[in-house]
């Protein structure tokens, strides 16, 4: 049992989100940095669908009310357990009464806490992710509060205390995400922009507006003006969709976005780069580069292989434990 003493700036239960309900207006929700949560679950030998806690920017404090195996994933946030530094991407046992505190993340936005077996919460419409708009899933369909208590499905992987994780030498990307441009696939209204306007999009150091959240990320930068202005009917959109409202400031739809929209679309950030966008700190320069669907699928497959490798490497820690 994990008790939340302080949720920090905003914490919610998330998994990899819902699928199959977009046709009735229910979006995916789910971890903004799905890659980080998947890695933490892989290291704990949890199912891919296991739910954990997504914290925003750190500043949280939790306590183990019973022994529980955990893994923290995401950016560095000066995490301590009873005052001792706790590395990230590291599986350990929190003993009853131990407190875990996080400072503030500087190089990222979302920190994930995965627990043995995942969080013991009912699935609603096929997932445990919190749908804040619909007010369901997660814990009572809401953000976590001080005093909330959450149970792990399989709190201990074995009898002995755990302590293991991947090495920074073998998996350098976990410690230093590449600073290459975020790749996107040009969308329906990309060609409504002339070459200068397209070059403005790919040549600008955009910054994230403070009005960015789980619903959408707003980009601060120059105003983009299409050659053609269109009035579109409402159509399905997905996380990663880069819209250009009449204001000329691009908005990227994130995990809690509406399932439909009507603004013109410059394109969509590829699945493999969405976690990097989700972690981009406010004020950090962001660049975008077009890419092909084939390159995007290759990048996604490579990510899947990396997570699979981590899962296999840590399987022995599971297999010798009943």
């Amino acid at each position, binding site marked *: 049992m994990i008790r939340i003493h302080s949720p920090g700036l905003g914490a919610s239960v998330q998994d990899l989100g819902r699928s199959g309900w977009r046709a009735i207006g229910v979006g995916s929700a789910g971890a903004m940095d799905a890659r980080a949560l998947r890695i933490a679950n892989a290291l704990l030998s949890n199912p891919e669908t296991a739910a954990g806690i997504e914290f925003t920017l750190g500043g949280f404090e939790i306590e183990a009310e019973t022994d529980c195996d955990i893994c923290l994933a995401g950016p560095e946030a000066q995490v301590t357990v009873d005052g001792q530094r706790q590395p990230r991407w590291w599986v350990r046992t929190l003993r009853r009464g131990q407190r875990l505190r996080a400072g503030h993340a500087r190089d990222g936005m979302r920190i994930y806490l995965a627990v043995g077996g995942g969080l013991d919460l009912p699935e609603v419409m096929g997932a445990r992710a919190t749908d804040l708009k*619909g007010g369901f899933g997660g814990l009572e369909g809401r953000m976590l509060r001080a005093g909330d208590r959450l149970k792990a499905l399989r709190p201990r992987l074995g009898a002995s205390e755990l302590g293991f994780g991947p090495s920074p030498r073998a998996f350098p990307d976990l410690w230093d995400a590449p600073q290459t441009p975020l790749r996107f696939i040009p969308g329906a209204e990309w060609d409504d922009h002339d070459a200068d306007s397209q070059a403005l999009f790919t040549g600008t150091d955009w910054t994230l507006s403070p009005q960015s959240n789980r619903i959408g990320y707003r980009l601060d930068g120059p105003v983009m003006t299409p050659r053609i202005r269109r009035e579109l009917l409402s159509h*399905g959109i997905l996380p990663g969709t880069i819209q250009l409202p009449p204001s000329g400031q691009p908005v990227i739809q994130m995990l809690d976005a509406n*399932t439909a929209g009507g603004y013109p679309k410059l394109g*969509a950030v590829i699945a493999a780069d969405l976690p990097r966008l989700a972690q981009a700190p406010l004020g950090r320069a962001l660049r975008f580069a077009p890419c092909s669907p084939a390159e995007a699928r290759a990048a996604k497959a490579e990510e899947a292989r990396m997570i699979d490798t981590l899962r296999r490497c840590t399987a022995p820690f599971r297999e010798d434990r009943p």
Partner: protein
Amino acid sequence: MADHPLSISWLGEAALLAQTPGPMSLEVQRRVWTLERQLAPLPGVADTVLGVHSVLVMMTDDADPEALIARLHAFWSNATADPRPGRLIEVPVSYGGDTGPDLGPVADHHGLSPRALAERHAAGTYTVFALGSQPGFAYLGGLDPALATPRLDSPRLHVEAGSVVIGGAQAGVISCSSPSGWHIIGRTETVFFDPNRAEPALLAPGDRLRFVLQEVRP
């Protein structure tokens, strides 16, 4: 379908968006329903999401996008109107009062009395074109064009579920409490979305909706 060409674009690496232009027409939407029904069972299609005059096709990792694009065009050129009758659903509405604060201003805008506006709104039969945006929200066709009203300049931050609304040329019912820039003319007790029901959304594309005037409050 020469007057309604289908344009297909990528939406990320795992989805294709097939759209045909407006204005919003039930005749065109019936063909879109047919297109969606034919696509859904194809290999490589993970999910389909209807929009107004559009279908978003989500693909599996092993899909052949070029083959799907060819099928989309072929299906569309042969798509006939889907005659689905849908269900007729009656939605009792209390117009005006504190739960319909824009009834007066919208009536003024059209030079009608609040009761006349409510009666005209309740006289129509509306068709669900598609669901989307928020859980259980339906895009409805069939608003009397004379009742079209430009949206609020700045959206309200909190609009209660069950609010009966007009936004531009569209009618709707807010299905989950949320921000909205549409005019609130009344309130219904009908629940349009409940995640714990076997069918969480009340409405499906093709359903018809009638608003039943219960009362008009000042």
